[in-house]
């Protein structure tokens, strides 16, 4: 029975994992420090005690962890593997890109690897260069992999369950700056939302903002500032990046004629480029050239003031939107 509870993102992830383990005996949950310690962010606390040997700690061996997930998934298990930081997934990219993504395709559907990788990314003050990258574009370049990026407690709960139920290899990218964030109401125990779609967070007529991940909060702050000046924008938060809700983006840009994409990942080769390219290819009439606000192509420094200078901030989004709305035909 669905019920409403107050949870932060970490709690919502924990509740989703508990439900998956409860309702699907074929799920396995494992990773570095997830069982006895309950995860370095505390997100998997209590699950090993409740679900026994289906929740276990592994050696620090990302390749073995993800390879084992591919093998177990092809035999009907539903592995949910935590890769502690997305930066560490690069150690095992072979198992994601060459192996998991290929199983269904090269076997012509005779086999499949329905595994879920839970990981987190994003910059936090004092994070070092190998613990702060935003790498979703690397995964989105690989056909065969589903990618989700939840932000709110409700989406963190829903998207994880949809990912576990999904028959494709799926990467759920969380953001550690949100785990211990404010609690919000979450409906738990309800039907699992189908994968795909978006969140319409604001509606307006002057521009469309497409955004994903933790930076959405800054976008909303910027949009709220503009509203005082009578500028209204559509804000589409993309909670699934593959499948991507292209019809929603094209529909919105078709109405507003102006597009801004905001992401924390580096600008060059980022998925924002893909969004703008697709909109351009679609022939939707534009009133102004599309814009991007993104990481100013750079490695990430440790000192918070240096990182802040490179990463998208509320003011950057506000400026970009004012420029965008002020340019082109009205």
């Amino acid at each position, binding site marked *: 029975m669905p019920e409403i509870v107050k949870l932060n993102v970490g709690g919502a992830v924990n509740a989703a994992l508990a439900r998956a383990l409860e309702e699907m005996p*074929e799920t*396995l949950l494992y990773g570095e420090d997830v069982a006895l310690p309950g995860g370095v962010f505390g997100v998997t606390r209590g699950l090993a005690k409740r679900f026994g040997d*289906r929740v*276990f700690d*592994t*050696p620090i*061996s990302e*390749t*073995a*962890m*993800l*390879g*084992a*997930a*591919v*093998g*177990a*998934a*092809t*035999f*009907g*298990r539903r*592995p949910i593997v935590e890769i502690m930081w997305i930066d560490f997934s690069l150690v095992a990219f*072979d*198992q994601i890109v*060459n*192996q998991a993504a*290929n199983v*269904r*395709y*090269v*076997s*012509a*559907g*005779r*086999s*499949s690897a*329905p595994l879920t990788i839970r990981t987190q990314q994003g910059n936090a003050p004092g994070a070092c260069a190998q613990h702060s990258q935003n790498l979703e574009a690397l995964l989105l370049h690989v*056909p*065969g992999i*589903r990618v989700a990026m939840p932000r709110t407690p409700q989406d963190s709960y829903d998207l994880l369950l949809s990912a576990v139920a*999904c*028959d*494709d290899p799926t990467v759920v990218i969380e953001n550690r700056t949100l785990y211990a964030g404010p609690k919000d109401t979450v409906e738990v125990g309800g039907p699992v939302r189908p994968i795909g779609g978006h969140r319409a967070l604001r509606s307006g007529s002057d521009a469309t903002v497409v955004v994903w991940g933790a930076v959405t909060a800054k976008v909303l702050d910027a949009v709220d500032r503009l509203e005082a000046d009578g500028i209204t924008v559509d804000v589409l938060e993309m909670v699934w990046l593959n499948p991507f809700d292209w019809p929603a983006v094209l529909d919105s840009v078709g109405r507003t004629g102006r597009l801004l994409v905001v992401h924390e990942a580096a600008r060059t080769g980022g998925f924002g480029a893909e969004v703008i390219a697709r909109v351009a290819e679609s022939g939707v009439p534009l009133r102004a050239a599309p814009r991007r606000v993104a990481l100013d192509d750079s490695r990430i420094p440790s000192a918070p003031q240096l990182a802040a200078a490179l990463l998208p901030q509320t003011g950057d989004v506000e400026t970009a939107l004012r420029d965008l709305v002020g340019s082109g035909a009205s």
Partner: protein
Amino acid sequence: MKLDDLLALWRIRALEEKIRDLRLEGPIVGSVHLSNGQESVAVGACSQLRPHDAVYATYRGHGWAVARGVPPREIFAELMGRVTGVNAGRGGSAHFSAPQHGFHGENSIVGAGAPIAVGAALAGRHDGTGRIALTVFGDGAMNQGAVTEAMNFAAAFSLGVVFVCENNRYSELTPIDAMVAQPDLSQRATALGIPAVRVDGNDLAQVRTATRLAVESAVAGRGPSFIEAHTQRIVGHYIGDAEQYRPAGELDRDLRLEPIARLTRELLAEGVAAEAVARCEERARSEMDAAAAAALADPLTDPATAKDHLYA
């Protein structure tokens, strides 16, 4: 029955020589890696597995598929992009799989199958089937981190995985001796707490015994085993390989060691009629000719299906 063994070896040899011909003639395109000279490792090891056990091979995996019972006609069809191929032409020579025969695929990332085999054994523990997994890789793969990670993972959790290192002395085009300081590769498994043996991979009896013990141990829940099977590749790494790395005289020696020559000598020495021995080769070649011809007559997979099976 040794004549049956000889036939089993010849089936792989004849299949691969037919594949070589079709590659040179044109119906098969792209990179093809043959296992001529190594057939006894596949035949011996697969003879000890149960139908529901999982085999993970490398891109040099045709022989392992045959030894696992994958129909040659479906292999030929796969290599020629036919709709009747095991994967309708998506897998090809280096990536085909036939899970319905317990053959869970080749892999052209060196060493990458080892962690996946660990997962098959992990599933076998949790789904109650008791399935174990066998993963085969070459000597070169021992230098991939994935293999060491997989061996440690399997050992740490006592998972039923048989690690078979097919040591043919060459890591693609480079001698393994030049790439390791410790030529006894089995010591790496021993160091991880895995029982390990080195066997003459050209001797079917040795391969069978080692695999039987490894399988028994895995089924009993005692965890992984490691078998280093010494063998030799009597053809190049790929079709077209000039083999300039091979010292003079080596191939002549290997041609005396390779398992078909060896078993043929044994049978004749035991008094088996030369005609009976020769019939094994003839029968295998005629089977493969027929399978290849049937596959060649099958329709190519429809290009309109090229994007099928990307997602569920």
